[in-house]
């Protein structure tokens, strides 16, 4: 269980990005964070694994306050939290296998990894994950040679290598077209349902939120302005949606379900 209490982040230039946010994520949840660009979604997610240090508040995960961890303890905690990024954040010149193996860095001694030596079980695990993500045949290509959808699956694979208990996904489909978006989210849903992985994912499109989330929080100007279950969001009216997204928002995207093959892959 992840418990966020009074989380606040003020950047050095004085920007208030997250403003006293509190909420709880039960284990096994597919929680979606919605809100406009700049509403604090990314900051919130990055505070959880401490890529950004929060200014104030607590992040209690399995009884430990992540906000107070430093050094070795922080790195150990990070190992159990996977993260997927909007722009994939792969090392483009390295091959897919190397990219995925970086997910095991936290579990290995420093010196062997510096000369790219990983234990056999890690390598076996990498191939297994690649098979599961359906990109086995891309393993030895440089990451930059892959399509966007494939790159994001590499990103997910890298996070999976960490044996995560929590997966943070920062706009994982914002750089992809709608068909691929569904494919990626179906992969995340599969991990959520099959492995019981807790997922916190920020999304832009209401139809994707309605389709995949089991609970939703909404941020606006860094404040928590909405909290609801899957049922709530299914019944969400345009007015409520506009409250979160502001007046400019529209319902974007159409139904693409059913156009996908069984595995959800089109690549």
């Amino acid at each position: 269980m992840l418990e966020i209490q009074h989380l606040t982040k003020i950047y050095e230039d004085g920007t208030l990005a997250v403003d006293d946010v509190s909420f709880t994520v039960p284990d096994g949840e597919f929680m979606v964070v919605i809100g406009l660009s700049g509403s604090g979604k990314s900051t919130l997610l990055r505070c959880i694994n401490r890529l950004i240090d929060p200014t104030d508040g607590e992040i209690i995960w399995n009884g430990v306050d992540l906000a107070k961890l430093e050094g070795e303890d922080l790195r150990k905690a990070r190992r159990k939290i996977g993260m997927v990024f909007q722009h994939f954040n792969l090392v483009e010149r390295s091959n897919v296998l190397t990219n995925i193996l970086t997910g095991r860095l936290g579990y290995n001694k420093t010196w062997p990894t510096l000369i790219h030596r990983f234990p056999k079980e890690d390598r076996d695990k990498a191939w297994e994950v690649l098979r599961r993500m359906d990109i086995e045949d891309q393993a030895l290509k440089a990451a930059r040679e892959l399509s966007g959808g494939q790159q994001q699956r590499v990103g997910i694979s890298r996070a999976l290598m960490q044996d995560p208990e929590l997966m943070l996904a920062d706009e994982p489909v914002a750089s992809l077209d709608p068909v691929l978006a569904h494919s990626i989210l179906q992969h995340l849903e599969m991990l959520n349902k099959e492995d019981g992985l807790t997922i916190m994912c920020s999304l832009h499109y209401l139809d994707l939120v309605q389709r995949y989330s089991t609970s939703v929080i909404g941020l606006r100007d860094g404040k928590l302005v909405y909290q609801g279950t899957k049922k709530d969001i299914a019944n969400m009216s345009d007015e409520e949606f506009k409250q979160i997204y502001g007046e400019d928002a529209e319902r974007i995207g159409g139904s693409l379900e059913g156009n996908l093959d069984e595995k959800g892959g089109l690549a």
Partner: protein
Amino acid sequence: MKIRRKPAYQEKVFKPGLVPPVVSAILSAIIPGLGQALSRMVRRGVVLFFSFATIVGLMIWRFQLAAPRDTGVVDIVKKAFHLDPIMILISVLFILLYLANIYDAYKVAVNSRKTEPRKPFLVFVALILVFFFIGWQIGKIDVYALVTQFDDAIPALSRVLWPWERAITYPEEEWEGTALMETPCTDPPPALNTPAEEGPYLIVDPACGEPTTQEENEAGESIVYPGTELHVLGYGFLPDEVVELWWRDPAGSKFRQRQDGDIITVIPDENGEFEIDIVWPYRIIPPSYREGISEWELQGRQITAIGEWEFSEELILAIEKMIETIFIGMMATFFGIIMALPVSFLAARNLMSANVFTLGIYYLVRGVLNIIRSIEPLIWAVLAVIIVGLGPWAGILALTIHSVAALGKLYSEAIESIDNGPIEAVQATGANWFQIVMYAVVPQVIPPFVSFTIYRWDVNIRMSTVIGMVGGGGIGYLLVQWIRNLDYRAAGIAVWFIAVTVAILDYVSAEIRERFT
């Protein structure tokens, strides 16, 4: 993150100028640019003012230089116009510029009430033209000399362009016949030279006499008393090969026989014999050799090629020095890389902006690198020669210093431009600092590092070809030496080697860099 909204776009409001158009024009006539500045085009006014100040300063200098002995403005201008007609053109253009400036001040003031600012086209063209012709005058550009004197340079240039006759030599043998001479004559005179048993010999008649002497009379004119006329017979020489006539004076120094200023040579007939009349030449002899009877020797020399061709000394030297040159560039690049790597991390802003202290180091390192880089390798070579003396080590030092600065800057810029995303992602997996650097930073900086390094290697070898000119070793030293000796063929060999090496290198370096981008 919060998005800060920009204020709504506002259309720029053009306020009217401070002075009416006529006043603006008059002000610009007194101080160029003032009218424009007061019509709210301050930058244009400042540029114009400093341009005029520069031009007037340059013109005063060049006019005085053109007419150095005259005083008074009118005299100087007249003389300068007379001696250097391009001054007339410059003056006309200057007046045109001045008028354009006044006109521009007027129009700017008129237009300052409208929204569209006036483009200073006429002033700009006039300004460029004035600077162009002042530059022409200062640079002493002389197309006439280039065209008319080109013919005279063709023999030298053609030797540089096609130097390969000098690339091979034939081993030579000297064939020498001599005769001893005495001065002054004794009684009885010495016997004539007897035929040698082997090889060539000379018989000179008489075998004694007086060299040419020279004296200065009271009026300071030098009077020449010609020496004894000598009848020289040569035997046993190689037929149809040039014989040079040389003297060895009593002090042992050798010099060639001249007649009326020209060097004398003879060509023997088919029997290897020749006959020539010469005058015993003038020679300054140290007093200690003048006492008693002194002995001179007349020599007839033939130089003939024997045996197969071989590579000339110059060609071998050029090859050796070219290899040295390439290694100077290579070693400098090695040292440059080794030192630039750590320095570049200190000069990368994204790594050094953690706190004031590291930022201070960043600015210090950046500053030092910029200063070092702004001094040319040739100047560093001159300084290095002072410390370690002439030779390749000085060249390596000079190029290393410059390479560290240049590579340090390029590397640090590569580090600054890496994508933060992978770093963030690897950090999120729980990796430590070393792992982050190895997996997220290194893969990103390797391609630019390789590319910059190859480029630098290329630059260093090109620089090392000239660094020898100031004593830094390598082929540049030979080139300068040969050019100074007017040995254009040998210089041509060096030029060819440099050109070919640089061309090959250019190609190779471009190929390698292509693979890494």
